[in-house]
């Protein structure tokens, strides 16, 4: 009687495309990685409890404004603000944000949802309240105060 040979299943896994997959992932992470933690001014954020802080959804259109006094603690010292890569005086921030908001609406048909304020903790409140009032007059009502989480929450 003639015995039939069993078909042998290959025990090797084809790894020829492995390097391609890995490179694909590599290129993705290389293009999405952010090395700089802070894209703006060197500021020290105030602290808040994690329970009162919220995260903005990915779908929200936001603009970050970095604000710092050149010499923190010195009331006479100038205050500078940064939006993107541009430095501007604090009093010009609301008008610039309004221009950006109109640009988003014109070009992308999207509304600016939230203005994220990344301010140094030693800024004088007098200047900050002026900024809030000017934002109101530019009809920019939704803001977020950036803060660090307190290490020992309640």
């Amino acid at each position, binding site marked *: 009687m003639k015995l039939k040979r069993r078909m042998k299943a290959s025990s090797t896994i084809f790894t020829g495309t*492995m*390097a391609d997959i*890995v*490179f694909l*992932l*590599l290129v993705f*992470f*290389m293009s*999405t*990685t*952010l*090395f700089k*933690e802070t894209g703006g001014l060197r500021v020290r954020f*105030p*602290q*808040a*409890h994690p*329970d*009162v*802080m*919220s*995260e*903005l959804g990915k779908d929200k259109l*936001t603009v*970050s404004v970095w604000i710092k006094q050149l010499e923190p603690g010195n*009331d006479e010292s100038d205050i500078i603000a940064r939006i993107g890569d541009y430095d501007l005086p604090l009093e010009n921030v609301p008008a610039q944000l309004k221009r950006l908001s109109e640009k988003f609406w014109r070009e992308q048909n999207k509304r600016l949802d*939230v203005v*994220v304020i990344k*301010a*140094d*903790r*030693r*800024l*004088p*409140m*007098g200047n*900050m*309240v002026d900024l*809030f009032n000017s*934002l*109101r*007059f530019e*009809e*920019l*009502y*939704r*803001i*977020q*105060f*950036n*803060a660090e*989480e307190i290490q020992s929450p*309640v």
Partner: protein
Amino acid sequence: MRIRNKPEASSKITDASMSDIAFLLLIFFLVTTTFEVQKGITYRLPKKPDIDTPEVVVDETNRVVMTIKQWGLHEYVALIDAAPPGGPLRRARAGEDVSLADTSLHRGLRELAAERAEPLDAVRERLLGNLEAAKGVRRGTYSSIRRAIEAENLTPMVMEGLPSRLMEDEVPVDEDPLFGNVAFGDTLVLSDVRQGPIATAVRESEMVVILKFFPDCDYEGMIEAIDMLRTNGVSRTGITIQERLGGGA
């Protein structure tokens, strides 16, 4: 004469280590990649003064006014200028400053806020509005929360808030036919099986705390004050500047 063969140089580049290098780089980027997360305290500024918009006047029974001053580098104190009559907090005399970290101030604010917890109807209405906004439909599409839940196949849930944890038995609780027991500070959530939470609304307090800052007070003081108020169930705050009165330094 015997001709000697020249040693042949290999024209191949060894690519065996290629995947090792790629993996090494991949792991490096996997570990170091940070997707930027915007985390902070959200705040809504009041609408700008307009002829068409009527001015909102907060009744003195629902209002606390505090002046915030800076004492030291990271120390802030409050002077209570106005408080609801008969409540746990009283109008302080000049110089009766209290630290923002004072527990009796926290307790007083918490009690006042809880007494003025908004009715459940108002929270449900806000939730319905948030759901319509999230779904991108016009306002009034759903006649009620119940209809919206049935139409969109949603699950109603309640998320415990901070006041429930801090006040335990003292926190006011009301029963809702759809959500069950809802305490002051809790969040009503409507979620979808696939997308998760779609719309939320917090049961807030109707009490308003107006914070008056000295112009030279640090911004950190404002964050500390808002943080303290939110932790104790006060979400409606006004921010203004305390003008210095009289002459002298």
